[in-house]
């Protein structure tokens, strides 16, 4: 279908449906269910320089209409990714976005430089928002200055499209988005998981080994839609929305709130075909209303029209 393509900086996505980081590994397993070249792109699991074993189990817990995870950015490291996984991904024809992580600004920059130098990596999503790291769940994305400083530095390290992925665990997400824009990000993506916790009342143990975990799934969707709305009214770069999208209807809500593209995370766990189903649903909706994607982005209206 025409009119579904989306621009993120110099990158053109063939459609606005992306797979969210951490919810589709490096594409291998999900690629057995869907044609990765049919969707807008895949954001691979967060990568540091080195491999990381991640947090001890238990790592997941189901919650009402959602789940907590404490995977802890387990991953194979950027070099192993490029050697072992990227070739397979390139064969599928997928648009590949690397979710860039770092324990220090230096590490973020190193990973970014490697990505910048590697063919077949189309864009970088800077994970300034992973809530599972130490320090009571803190991350650079909780602070305007830290965001500005990190994004500016990475902006200098790569010419590839740069997306800043924002944390929802903050008072004013629009101001963080603004910092990212001022620092040169080509787009912002949101939301990462909400910090949450659950406790086993038989033992008193937290349900994830690290105590806190990241809450995702439909439970958080109203918060995500609200934040996308607030950010889209504030910045002029594209906004990539996510958080609890499980049907094409949910996707339309995000577009109306102001998202130019969306990512599907947790729902892939339950239905590996869901991203394709959502893409088809978006197309049918637009066709039936004779609209283009651009017509509905940000079209929402506060309260009933009289």
């Amino acid at each position, binding site marked *: 279908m025409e009119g579904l393509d989306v621009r993120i900086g110099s990158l053109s996505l063939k459609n606005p449906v992306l797979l969210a980081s*951490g*919810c*589709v*590994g490096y594409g*291998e*397993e*999900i690629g*057995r*269910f869907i044609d990765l070249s049919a969707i807008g792109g895949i954001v691979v*699991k967060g990568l540091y320089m080195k491999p990381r*074993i*991640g947090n*001890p*189990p*238990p*790592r*997941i*817990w*189901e*919650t*009402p*209409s*959602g*789940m907590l*995870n404490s*995977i802890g950015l*387990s991953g194979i490291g950027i070099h192993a990714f490029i050697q072992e996984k990227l070739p397979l991904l390139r064969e599928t024809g997928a648009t590949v976005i690397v979710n860039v992580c770092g324990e220090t600004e230096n590490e973020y920059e190193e990973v970014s430089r490697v990505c910048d130098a590697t063919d077949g990596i189309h864009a970088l999503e800077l994970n300034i928002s992973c809530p599972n790291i130490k320090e009571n769940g803190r991350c650079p994305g909780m602070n305007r200055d830290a965001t500005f400083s990190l994004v500016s530095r990475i902006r200098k390290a790569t010419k590839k499209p740069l997306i800043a992925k924002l944390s929802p665990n903050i008072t004013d997400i629009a101001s963080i988005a603004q910092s990212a824009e001022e620092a040169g990000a080509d787009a912002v993506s949101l939301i990462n998981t909400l910090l949450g916790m659950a406790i086993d009342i038989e033992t008193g143990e937290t349900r994830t*080994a690290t105590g806190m975990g990241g809450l995702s*799934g*439909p439970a958080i969707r109203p918060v995500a839609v609200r934040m996308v709305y607030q950010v889209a009214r504030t910045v002029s770069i594209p906004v990539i929305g996510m958080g609890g999208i499980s049907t094409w209807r949910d996707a339309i809500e995000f577009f109306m709130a102001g998202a130019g593209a969306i990512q599907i995370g*947790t729902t*892939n*766990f*339950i*239905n*590996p*075909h869901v991203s394709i189903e959502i893409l088809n649903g978006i197309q049918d909706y637009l066709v039936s209303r004779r609209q283009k994607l651009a017509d509905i982005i940000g079209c929402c209206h506060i309260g009933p029209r009289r």
Partner: protein
Amino acid sequence: MAHYLAARVISVEPLKSYVRLTLEAPSIAAEMRPGQFVMVSASPEAFLARPFSIAHVDGDRISIVFQAVGCGTDWLVALRPGNTTKVLGPLGNGFCLGDGDHPVIVAGGRGIAPFYDLVRRISHLSPVLFYGGRTKEQIVEPEYFERFCDRLVITTEDGSAGRQGFLTDPLADYLQKNTPPVIYGCGPHAMLHRVAELADGIRTEFSMEARMACGFGICIGCVIPAGESGYRRVCIDGPIFGAKDIRWKDLT
């Protein structure tokens, strides 16, 4: 290849402490190997699907044998013929079927599930099944297993069926006198750990459990400590592991 489909419920039968749910799932039935599992979408209330070993395959149908322990399994018990539920599978590596005689199978409680299909497929090798439960209510369909096994040793903790005690006791005796080509195991991790100690040198194929979100490798949520260091995903690197690959002391 794994399939995701809406499966029609054929029947829901009580089996003492457990329940057998039979579903029409042709593509899964056609491709399934013993030891593999399915993710069953449990209910609108349970957000994630739930993993269950595939017990039987019969034509277009598969069955799971499970215990009702929470909101998802309670909902499965309440299903009726004609309802449908989403199923993803077959998943996981499944057992390696060896070719030596008298393979040993060790099943604790609902750990019997994956062996329904296995014993049928390896009956020509005259397997020996050690089957333990807390009470006789946990020992389901011994006559079925008798048909396919050379020997069936039953234990219950309260002595209400078979020999009283833990199944690792008769197993220890047996392993003093025999060296089976392989030990297949499924049951509580504590039981498997004990079996691993007894197995010493014998090849093992243990079906492990972990909480799962996806069941096919993409969430990295279902890990257990395995190998020298680090973790392995139960859903895709397993659920069948060799006992010596597991770092039993790090298991929680």
